[in-house]
C-alpha cells in the first residue's frame, strides 16, 4: 500500500471557532493507483490534498495518521515534513501559472531548488522530461513571463515530478484550462504513472467527467467526510451513495437536449462545518433519509474496492 490514511482530522482555526474541514477520513491508495478526489467546494478535498504535503498557517492537525510506504508522516511538523516533500510526496498546485519565481530563469530556479534539497541537478534528465511534455529545452533559458499559461503548467508538472515521488497530488490543475489543454494535461498525468515517474497519484477535481478518463478509482467527499470510493467506472455507472447518485445525475449527458428536460442540481446546501450536525451530514438533503441516519454511517466496504458511507447502501 502506498498511502494509508487513518481517521485524519484537520481543522481550520477561525475567529468563530474551529471549522472541521476534514473530520475523520480513512482510506488508502494502492501502488500505481490514480485516485480521483471529487466533491463540491467546501467538501474538504483541497484540505485533504494540502494536509498530505503542507498544512497552511490556519490548519491544525487534530488527529489521525498518514503513512506513506510504511513511514508515518509528521503532518504538523513543518521541518520534519521536508524529508518527505518533493522526494516522497509532491504537488502540482492549482496556481501553476504563478508558481514559478518571476525573476529567475526557469533552468536556474530548478537548479537552485534541487541544490537546496541536496540533489545534483542533471540537465540532460531535465531536458528529457521537458521533451516528454512537449517542451523544448529552450524554456530553461527563459523567464516564466515568456511562457504561455499552458507551458508554465507543463513546466510545473515536470519540476514537481523530477525526483520521482511515490505520491503526486494534483490539486484542481485543470480548472483554469480550456478543454483541449485539459485533455493534454490528463494524458500527461497518465504518462507520468505509466512511465513509472510517479508511483501513485491523487487528482483533486470537481470535474468528475475529466477525472473519469484517467482515474482508476474515484473518491467522493461531502462536508468533510468520505461519501464513497469505488473503481472509476463503477462509481460513475453504479454509484451507491445517494449523494454520488445525485452528483452523477447532475452531469450533462452527450446527445441529450436539455430544452425538454432541465438538468437538475441537488437541492439544498451543505451544512456549516463550524458546528456540523451529528450523524450523516447529507441527511438534510437526502431523499432516502430515515431515523438511523442520526447516527453516523461507517465507511464500509460493500463490494471489493467499493466503500460507501450510507446505511441504505447494501
Amino acid at each position, binding site marked *: 500500500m502506498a498511502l494509508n490514511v487513518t481517521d485524519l482530522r484537520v481543522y481550520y482555526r477561525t475567529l468563530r471557532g474551529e471549522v472541521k474541514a476534514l473530520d475523520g477520513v480513512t482510506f488508502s491508495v494502492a501502488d500505481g493507483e490514480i485516485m480521483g478526489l471529487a466533491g463540491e467546494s467546501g467538501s474538504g478535498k483541497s484540505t485533504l490534498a494540502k494536509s498530505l*504535503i503542507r498544512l497552511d498557517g490556519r490548519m491544525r492537525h487534530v488527529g489521525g495518521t498518514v503513512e506513506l510506504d510504511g513511514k508515518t508522516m509528521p503532518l504538523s511538523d513543518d521541518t520534519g515534513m*521536508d524529508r518527505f516533500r518533493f522526494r516522497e510526496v509532491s504537488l502540482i*498546485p492549482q496556481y501553476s501559472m*504563478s*508558481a514559478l519565481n518571476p*525573476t529567475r530563469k526557469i533552468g536556474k530556479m530548478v537548479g537552485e531548488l534541487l541544490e537546496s534539497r541536496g540533489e545534483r541537478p542533471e540537465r540532460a534528465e531535465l531536458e528529457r522530461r521537458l521533451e516528454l511534455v512537449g517542451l523544448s529545452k529552450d524554456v530553461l533559458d527563459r523567464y516564466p*513571463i*515568456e511562457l504561455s499559461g499552458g507551458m508554465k503548467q507543463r513546466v510545473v508538472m515536470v519540476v514537481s515530478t523530477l525526483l520521482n515521488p511515490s505520491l503526486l497530488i494534483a490539486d484542481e490543475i485543470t480548472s483554469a484550462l480550456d478543454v483541449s489543454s485539459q485533455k493534454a494535461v490528463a494524458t500527461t498525468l497518465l504518462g507520468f504513472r505509466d512511465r513509472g515517474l510517479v508511483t501513485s497519484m491523487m487528482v483533486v477535481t470537481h470535474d468528475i467527467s475529466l477525472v473519469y478518463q484517467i482515474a482508476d478509482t474515484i473518491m467522493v467527499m461531502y462536508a468533510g467526510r468520505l461519501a464513497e470510493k469505488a473503481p472509476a467506472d463503477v462509481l460513475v455507472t453504479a454509484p451507491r451513495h445517494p449523494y454520488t447518485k445525485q452528483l452523477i445525475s447532475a452531469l450533462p449527458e452527450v446527445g441529450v437536449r436539455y430544452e425538454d428536460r432541465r438538468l437538475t442540481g441537488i437541492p439544498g446546501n451543505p451544512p456549516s462545518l463550524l458546528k456540523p450536525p451529528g450523524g450523516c451530514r447529507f441527511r438534510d438533503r437526502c431523499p432516502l433519509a430515515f431515523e438511523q441516519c442520526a447516527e453516523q454511517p461507517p465507511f464500509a466496504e460493500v463490494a471489493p474496492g467499493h466503500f460507501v458511507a450510507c446505511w441504505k447502501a447494501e
Partner: protein
Amino acid sequence: MRRYFGRKLLIYGLTFFVAVTINWMIPRFMPGDPVQSMLSRANVAQPAAVEAMRAHYTAMFGLDLPLWQQYLNFWGSLLKGDLGISIWLFPTPVSDVIVRAVPYTLGLLIPSILLSWFAGNRFGAFAARRKWLDNSVLPIGYVLTATPYMWLAILLAWALGIVAGIFPVAGAYGFDLQASWSWTFLGSLAQHWFLPFASLFLVAFGGWAIGMRNMIIYELEADYVNYLRALGAPTRLVRRYAFRNAILPQVTGLALQLGVLVAGALVTEIVFSYPGLGHLILQAIQNQDFFLLQGTFLFIVIGVLIANFIIDVAYVLVDPRTRTGMGGAA
C-alpha cells in the same frame, strides 16, 4: 532595447526643458528688483550716479531686454556653460559659487540616500519575520517617516547639540579652522556632518523599512513561495527569492523619492547652516539673486534626472519583466 532608451532619453530631454524653463521663470516673477537691492547695498547718494549704475547693471545682467529675448539669451549662454554672475556674491560667476557648495550637498545626500535605502531594506526584511520586532520597532518607523526633515533636524540639533553638547549645530567645520587636509579639519568636518546626515538618514530609513517589511510579507504569501515550500525548499532559498522580488518596488520607490530627498536635504542644510546648495538657495532668494537661483535649480534638476536615469537602467538589469516590453525576441 535601443527604442526603449531612445524613448526614455526623449522624456528626460523634455523634462529637462520644462524644468529649466520654470527655473528661469520663477525668479523673474518674484516680487522685488535685484538691481535695486545692489544699488542700496552700494550706498551711493548722488541721484545721477545711481541712475548711471542702474543703467550699467541692468544692461550687464541683460535685464533691459524684452522677456523673450532674455529667455533666448538664457538658453544661449546655458548651452555655452555660462550660468551668469551672482548678484549676492558679485562679481563671482555662479558656476564657481555652485562648485564650492556641491561637495557639501553631495557629501550629505549620497551617503544618506544609499545608506538609508540599504539599511532600511535590510531592516524591514528582518523585521518582517520577527513578531516582537514588527510590533515594537515598526511603529517607530512610522513615526520617523512621518516626521518632517527639518523638524527632526531641529530636534536633533536641540537634543544632541544644545542639551547634550556632543555635536556642533552650525556650519560645515569649526569657525576657527581653515580648509585643509589636516586631521583636525577632517575630524571637525565629520563632526559637523553627522547631525544633518543623521536627520536625513533617519527619516528615509523609517520609510524604506516599512515599505520593505510590507513587501516581504506580501512576497512570502505569493504562490511561488507556497510552491517552493511545498517542495521542501529551505527557508534560506525562499527568503532570498522573496527579498530579491520585494526589492524591485523599492528601486522604483528610490527613483520617486529622490526629488523628495533632495528637497529634504536642502531644508536640512538651512537648519544646520550647512554650506551646500540648500543654503545657497536661501541666500539667493533673500538677495534676489536670479542667476544663482537659476543655476542652483539647474544643478538640482540635472542631478535628479541623472539619478533617475541610472535607476531606470538598473531596473532593466534587475527585473527581467521590464525587458520583454522592449521589442524584439527576448
